[in-house]
């Protein structure tokens, strides 16, 4: 049972991550961020794509 719980939580976390990333990008995210997937960050200050970084 505990194995199913761990796996279930991981799957839910992955789904939430993807939904947040594509459907509800953070309001802190740079307006210029195209979500290139080059970083996992949602704030402009941590964007590592120089072509997109726009504080």
């Amino acid at each position, binding site marked *: 049972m505990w194995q199913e719980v761990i796996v279930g939580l991981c799957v839910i976390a992955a789904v939430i991550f993807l939904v947040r990333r594509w459907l509800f990008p953070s309001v802190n995210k740079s307006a210029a961020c195209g979500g290139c997937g*080059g970083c996992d960050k949602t704030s402009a200050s941590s964007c*590592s794509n120089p072509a997109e970084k*726009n504080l």
Partner: protein
Amino acid sequence: MSTPIRFALIGNPNCGKTSLFNRLTGARAKVANYPGVTVERRSGMVTGLTQPAELLDLPGTYSLFVTSPDEQVARDVILGQLPGERRPDLLVAVVDACNLRLGLRLVMELKTLNRPMVLALNQMDEAKRRGISIDTAALSQAIGIPIVETVAVNSQGVNALRKLLDGYAQQPPLAEGEQTLAISDRQESVEALYAEIESLMRQYVIAPAQMPRWQDRLDALVMHPLIGLVVLFSILLVIFQAVFAWASPLVDLIDAGFSGLGELVGALLPDGILKDFIVEGLIAGVGGVLVFLPQILILFFFILLLEDTGYLTRAAFLLDRPMRGLGLSGRSFIPLLSSFACAVPGIMATRTISDPRERFITIMVAPLMTCSARLPVYALIIAAFIPQQTVWGIFNLQGLTLFALYFAGVASAALIAWIMRRRSGREEFPLLLELPSYRWPMAYHLFMGLRERAWIFVRRVGTIILALSIVLWFLATFPGAPEGATQPAIDYSFAGQLGHWMQPFFAPLGFNWQMCIALIPAMGAREVAVSALATVYAVGEESIDVALGSALAASWSLPVAYAYLAWFVYAPQCISTIAVVKRETNSAKATAFFTVYLFALAYFAAWATYQIASAIVA
């Protein structure tokens, strides 16, 4: 809390603004030895000042009379005309000491704004090496602007500049006044400006009559319309050979590491869902993609090397004429080149293109340049289906195949650009790019560039690819096979059902339902096609790379493999690319056209490849 004082770096393209920005702020923004790297304004806090101060790094511009969208950004920020942007308190004009005449034009225009300004005379080391002598103190007095000599790439003069900025930051702020651009771009005004610059150059600069002869000779060779193309073609061929030939030992090492990890986890954990999840979902999914890191790094090593030597701008000039035949120009070269890394920054880099129609066409064809996310898919299928044999004594057949795939993308982009341009009238915009000096590549730039690419890739693997692999494993595992099932369990899973549902549509292309499943997560990130295939073919504890290759070789025919490769040459672009096309074109219609045409192209190319290859094999 008071608003920090704001400085802005402004100067010609490729004069070293971003290097200076990195040195002053401690940032690690990309720098390269070609113009047009910065297309948006970038911001950071200056380190080492007694007061907080923000520094803006603006796209390069030759004049305040702008011709392209990126130059417009620089001008609007300087003039305080960008909505929501505060006007900078002090301008830091950056001028390449080797191109003083060109830099002074912008400085003299900026001077008419009557704004506080300092001048950073950058690349002084290179100027001295070329025998250029500048009487900085006298020039400063003549133009009434403090000048600091800098060599941004190794921090020389950066502290002096910082001290000057600190001194300014401690002064009471000046009242905001109205400003207008006091000069015009009328011919007589430009002539007067140049006369003034020539006078300054005569009085304060001693320069040798010619550039170093070896650079001229090299330029005559690499920019020759015919020999230059042969040189470019040869360089690219060597790069793609190296991607396969050099990467193998490292790929094998990473592969062995993940295989060992899979076996270890398999031995430690009791049989059950958790073990399946970790071994077949996480390790196979993530490991299957991460093994391609060496190939990506080798590709970028060469691109960075060419960037840093100054060759890439020559390539842009070289390709200007052939590209004009297609309706594009050398200006499209750098956005298209950037797209080999990722289409997103490539599409954003089209802002340097003055002609709106050319910009639109470049956006439409940029994703046909093979981005690094496609490399794992190509590498997997090539390794599984193309024998590792030498051709014509020197070439590796796998490397040649990879070259052919990249070439197919480029050739298709050329054809589509030509068709699109024929459908619209054209206006000639001459290519104006500054030709940088050749220089020995700097190990620091190479290291930083490779570190950035490696980090971007590893982060993608650790986030989006990991998440997609988990979801995919779940869809491929649940629901389990019913009692008395005769087919493999995945046939009954959600993924299996989806694959079976999609398969009739892709049947003319020869795709089986497992291949159809992999197409869906590949829309999120192309590399996930590899982990998706690892999941649906249930590759786990064995050597992931080898085992998956063997599984594909056993279940796909050669025409099917070719068709799958053709699909990925044109594949409908990832979600991020579609989003950035929407933003850059600001048109739902253009975005819909972009998505549909690429999908249709991918479908047709895969269909044609499959049919032709099947006919040949038969």
